[in-house]
C-alpha cells in the first residue's frame, strides 16, 4: 500500500510519486493529503502536485524541514508509506477569470501546477511565475510550460529571469500595465505575504495556500487555525486557500514557530538511520 514509485531530490525538495489509487481518483486542484512515513511519524500535510487516476499515482514535492520529512527523504523506491489520507481541504475555485497569475516558490513550484492546469482548461490565460535562489533549483518546469501561456522566472542571484522574487516580477508586470484578474500563490509564508502585498494596491483578488501547523486535517484539533479578516478559520477544512489580503501574517508566523524548542530537542537525541525513539519529551 502507498508504495513509493519514483523518487528524486532537487535541493531539499524530494519528488515522491506514491501509489494511492483511491486518492488519485477523487483529487481536485488545490487539495492536499496527510502522509505518515511510518507508524511513529508525524502527520505531514502535503500539497498534491499531480495525479493520474488511471495509474493511481500521486506526485508530492516534499521540502525537507525537520525529522519527519528527513525520514521521508531517506525512503527509497519500493518502500511504502505507512499512511496517506486525502484528499483534504477545499479545492481551488476554478472558473473563467481572464488572466490568472500563479506564483510558486520552493515546494510551491510543483504545488501550483494542478491549479495552472485547471485554470488553463477553464479557458484562462495562465502566467506562471516561479522563484528560486539559483537557476539550477527549478523543477517541474516542462509540465508547467505545457499548461501555461507564459512562464516567468525569478532568481536571487539573477542567473535566470529577473533577479529577485516572485513579487518583484508581479510588481513589474503590474507597473507595466499587465492586467491580472486573479492571483494564486504557494510557497513559504514570507513569500505569500510579500506577494499579497504586491497585489494589494491593484486590488487583484489574491488566493494564498497557507501552510500552518496541522495535526488531523479534518477540523477537529484546531492546530491549523489562522485569522482571516479577524475571523478564526481552520486551514484544513476552511482552506488551505484564503484571501491573501486578509491574512494575519504576524500571527501565522508566530504560530508556525510554536514548537521550535521541541523540534530542536528532538534532533539532539536523533540518530540517523538507526532505531531510536522518534520523539523526545520537552
Amino acid at each position, binding site marked *: 500500500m502507498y508504495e513509493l514509485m519514483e523518487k528524486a531530490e532537487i*535541493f*531539499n525538495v524530494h519528488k515522491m510519486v506514491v501509489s494511492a489509487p483511491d486518492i488519485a481518483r477523487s483529487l481536485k486542484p488545490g487539495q492536499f493529503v496527510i502522509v505518515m512515513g511510518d507508524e511513529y511519524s508525524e502527520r505531514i500535510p502535503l500539497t498534491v502536485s499531480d495525479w493520474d487516476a488511471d495509474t493511481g499515482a500521486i506526485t508530492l514535492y516534499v*521540502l*525537507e*524541514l*525537520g525529522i519527519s520529512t*528527513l525520514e521521508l*527523504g531517506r525512503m527509497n523506491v519500493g518502500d511504502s508509506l505507512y499512511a496517506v489520507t486525502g484528499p483534504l481541504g477545499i479545492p481551488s475555485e476554478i472558473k473563467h477569470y481572464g488572466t490568472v497569475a500563479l506564483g510558486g516558490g520552493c515546494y510551491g513550484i510543483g504545488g501550483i501546477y494542478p491549479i495552472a492546469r485547471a485554470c488553463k482548461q477553464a479557458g484562462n490565460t495562465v502566467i506562471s511565475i516561479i522563484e528560486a*535562489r*539559483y537557476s*539550477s*533549483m527549478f523543477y517541474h518546469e516542462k509540465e508547467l510550460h505545457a499548461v501555461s501561456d507564459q512562464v516567468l522566472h525569478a*532568481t*536571487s*542571484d539573477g*542567473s535566470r529571469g529577473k533577479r529577485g*522574487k516572485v513579487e518583484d516580477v508581479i510588481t513589474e508586470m503590474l507597473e507595466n500595465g499587465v492586467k491580472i484578474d486573479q492571483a494564486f500563490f504557494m510557497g*513559504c*509564508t*514570507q513569500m505569500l505575504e*510579500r506577494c499579497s502585498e504586491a497585489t494589494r494596491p491593484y486590488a487583484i483578488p489574491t488566493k494564498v495556500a497557507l501552510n500552518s501547523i496541522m495535526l488531523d486535517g479534518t477540523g477537529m484539533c484546531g492546530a491549523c487555525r489562522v485569522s482571516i479578516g479577524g475571523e478564526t478559520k481552520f486551514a484544513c477544512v476552511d482552506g488551505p486557500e484564503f484571501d491573501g489580503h486578509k491574512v494575519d501574517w504576524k500571527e501565522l*508566523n508566530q504560530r*508556525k*514557530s510554536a514548537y*521550535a*524548542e521541541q*523540534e*530542536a*530537542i528532538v*534532533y*539532539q*537525541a*536523533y*540518530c*540517523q*538511520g*538507526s532505531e*531510536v*525513539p522518534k520523539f*523526545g*519529551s520537552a
Partner: protein
Amino acid sequence: MEELVEKKDYAMEEMTINGKVVSFSPGETILEVARRSGIYIPTLCARADLASTGSCRLCIVKVEGVRGYVTSCTTPATPHMVVTTTSPEIETLRRGILELILSEHPSACLVCPIRETCEQFNAPSSKVGRVTGCNMCPNRNICELRQLVEYLGLKEIRYPFLYKDFPLERDDPFMDRDYNLCILCGRCIRICEENLGLSAISFIRRGHDTKVGTSFEELHVDGSCVFCMHCVDVCPTGALSVRGSKWYGYPDSETPTTCILCERGCELVIDTKWNKVMGAHPVRDMSIGKREYCVKGRCCLPALFNSADRLKYPAIRPDSGTIIHTEWDRAIEHVSDIVSHYDPREIAVLSSSHLTDESIYVLHEFARVYAESNIFYFKDAEIVFPSIEKSDDIFKDIKLLYVAEANSLTDETLGQFGSLEAIIIQDNYSSPMSSSPKVCAILPSTVFTEMNGTKTCADNRRKPVTKAAEPPGIAIPDWEITTRIGKALGSPDFRVKDFRTIQNHIQMHPWTIASVPMVQKDSLTYRGFSISELVPDFKVFVERRLEVKGEVHF
C-alpha cells in the same frame, strides 16, 4: 629557561603598518604584528592558533618596495618594513577574491536585500538537510564569510554560481557535513593534524572535485576521528555542524562552566536557549593547550540533560501505598520521618563521583551525623569506601539505603544487604530501581549545568561549575536536598544558606573531597547510567569503535 633567555636576547625590531610604527619580535608574520597592534586584516584561512598556509588570499597587503601584493599571514615581518593593509585598490582586489570564493558557496542570500526579514521569520528553515542559503545555515550567526561580505561591502557577485552537488554526509554520529558550503580553507585539516596529531581528514580528489574527506571516504567513525569537533569550531562556514546543536538558532546566553563528566574537568561554554542546554563548545578564542575536549562533553550534554527520562517531581510512597508525586516540603518530611526510624548503624549512603564537591561534602556530613559514616561509591562497578575503617561487612546490618546513583545498584549488590527495608533515591533519571517496592522516596536532583558549585578535578584544582540552564520540573541541586533532609532531622550542621557556606566547610575539611574516587576519563557512564542508553549517537560511536578498534578512549 634557556629558551626564555634566548628570546630576551633578541631586541624588538620596528616596522610601520598604515603609518603607525609598531614593534615586533623576529619570526612574527605581518598578520600577527598587525593583530597585536590592533590593526584588522581580513582573513578566512588564517587563525592565531594554526600555521598559516595562505590559501584564501584575502589578507593581501602592500609592502613598500615589493612588487605586487603579499599575503600577510605567510610573510615574516622585517625591520623597517613599510606595510599598507588597506587602500581602494586592495579592497577591490579583496572583493574580487571574495567573489570568486563565493561563486562556489551558496551565497545568494549574502547579497539579498530581504535577507534580514527572511531570517527573522524563516528561522525553522535551518532544519533543512541541504543548505542553499543563509536562512537555512546553522552557522549563520557566527559566519566569517558573512562578516567579510559586510566588511568589504560586497553587493553583487558577478560570477555564475557553481553548486558542487556533493552528497550530504549525515551517517556519522554527532556530525552533519555538507561540503557544498566548504571553501577549502583547510582549517579543519590543519587543526586535526597540528593540534591533535590525528590527521583524520585531508584534501581528497583533485581540481574542481577537491573536497575535505577521510581516506577511502570511509565514515569518520571508522577512521581515526575522535569527534572532538575542533574542526567544527574552526570552520568559517556552515559546512560542518554538530547535529544536536544545529536547529535551535542563536543561543540566549553562553555560560562558561566546567564539564564534570570525568576527572579532567574541561572548561566548557554552554549554549542556552529556552532555558535548556542546547550546545556545548570550547571557549571560542581557544589557545593551544586547552584542546582536550572529548565527544562526551562536546556532543553528549544536550541529549543527556534534555532526556525524556529526567526526574522532574519528588515522589513518595506513603504507608506502603503506591508511589505518588508530591511537593518538596512533604517529600522532605516523609524522608526525614523514615530516616528517624532507623538507628545510624542501620543506614548507609551511596554517593556518586559525578556530583559537585558541595553535594559530595553534604552527603558525607549526612553520613557522619546520621549513618555512622557508612558511605560508599561505585568506581568501575566496584564498591569503594572512602574510609579505610569501613568495608562491605557493614552491609549486613543496613536497613535503609540513601542512594545518589540508583542505577549502579545491581541485584548482586543488593543481595549483600541482608535486611534492607527501604531505599531513598536521589537521582537525575528514572531507573529500573525506581519501581522496586522498597523505594520509599524518589528525589529529583539537577545536573551540573543546572546548578552552581565547584568540582575538584584530577589536577587537584577546584574548578567552578556555573548554572546555565533551568532544571526540569522542580528538581533542586543534590546538596540542597541533603541539607533539607538533614535540617528536618534537627542537626545544626545543616543550617547552610547557600553553596558558598558549604565551600567554607570544604576548605576546613579538605580530606573529605580528597577521599572520593574520581571518574576515569574513559568512563562510559554518567551517574550509574550508561551514556549510550541516553544518547543514541554515543551508542553508535562506542559500538563502532569497539567493532573496528576493539577499544574506546577519550
